């Protein structure tokens, strides 16, 4: 009986993807559409209002970066599940110029544009998981995950 139990435990810890939705973001109208879709998905998995606001604000920051620096890109909305907890994973990928110094970009107050430089570090504070991969000349992929509770 014992080994069986450990097996279930490890399986529970795995993050499963339950649904996947790909949205192209090229124009300002697409941004509105994307935000609405994220909101709908958050409501569907019964995410709390404060977490919804955090996730939507994070999405808003990232999609703005994508529009400003890379002329748009693609966002994948996934509903994920790990054990009893459901969450939303958003993957923003673009074919923009890339970020030469990710460590600097993750610092509060750093910006190559004329913004406040809160976008990336602020977004990281709003979500549960944050991952950034970027290659100069190829593009940037940012993945964030927010659990419905927590």
């Amino acid at each position, binding site marked *: 009986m014992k080994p069986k139990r450990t097996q279930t435990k490890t399986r529970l810890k795995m993050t499963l993807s339950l649904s996947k939705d790909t949205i192209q973001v090229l124009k300002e109208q697409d941004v509105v559409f994307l935000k609405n879709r994220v909101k709908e998905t958050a409501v569907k998995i019964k995410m709390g209002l*404060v977490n919804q*606001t955090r996730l939507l604000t994070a999405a808003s*920051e990232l999609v703005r970066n994508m529009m400003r620096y890379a002329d748009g890109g693609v966002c994948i909305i996934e509903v994920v599940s790990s054990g009893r907890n459901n969450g939303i994973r958003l993957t923003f990928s673009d074919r923009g110029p890339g970020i030469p110094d990710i460590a600097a970009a993750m610092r509060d107050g750093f910006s190559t544009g004329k*913004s*406040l430089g809160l976008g990336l570090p602020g977004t990281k504070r709003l979500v549960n998981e944050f991952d950034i991969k970027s290659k100069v000349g190829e593009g940037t992929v940012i993945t964030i995950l927010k659990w419905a509770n927590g």
Partner: protein
Amino acid sequence: MDKIPILRMGAFLLVTIQVDLYDRLALNLEADLVQMVNKTNAKGVLIDISAVSIVDSFMGRIIGNIASMSKILDAETVVVGMQPAVAITLIELGLPLKGVHTALDMEKGMNLLKSMINETEEDADEDQTENDFIAE
């Protein structure tokens, strides 16, 4: 192009944002509002954001800009009706909206504006302009 209406009430300008702001709309509002402050000689600006569910760093910056621009045109800005979830998100994001006066609702915001403007006038009489910032 959508536009957010700016209403004039005595020496004040009232703005109620009923839709979720997108970037261009916010930039237009900033420009319109500063023009209106100049044109109407307004002493105070009241912005109601009770229907706004997301304020990200860009929107936060616009709100801050409106407050500072109005300030140098001699008008005070009060933001009212912020949703609790928005307040939580703004602080976690790292945007404390310094220099922007806030009040819980329209009525309290109106009182705050009135008291600030009275105070400024009294201060001007007594030549104590440093006290401007010590509004409640």
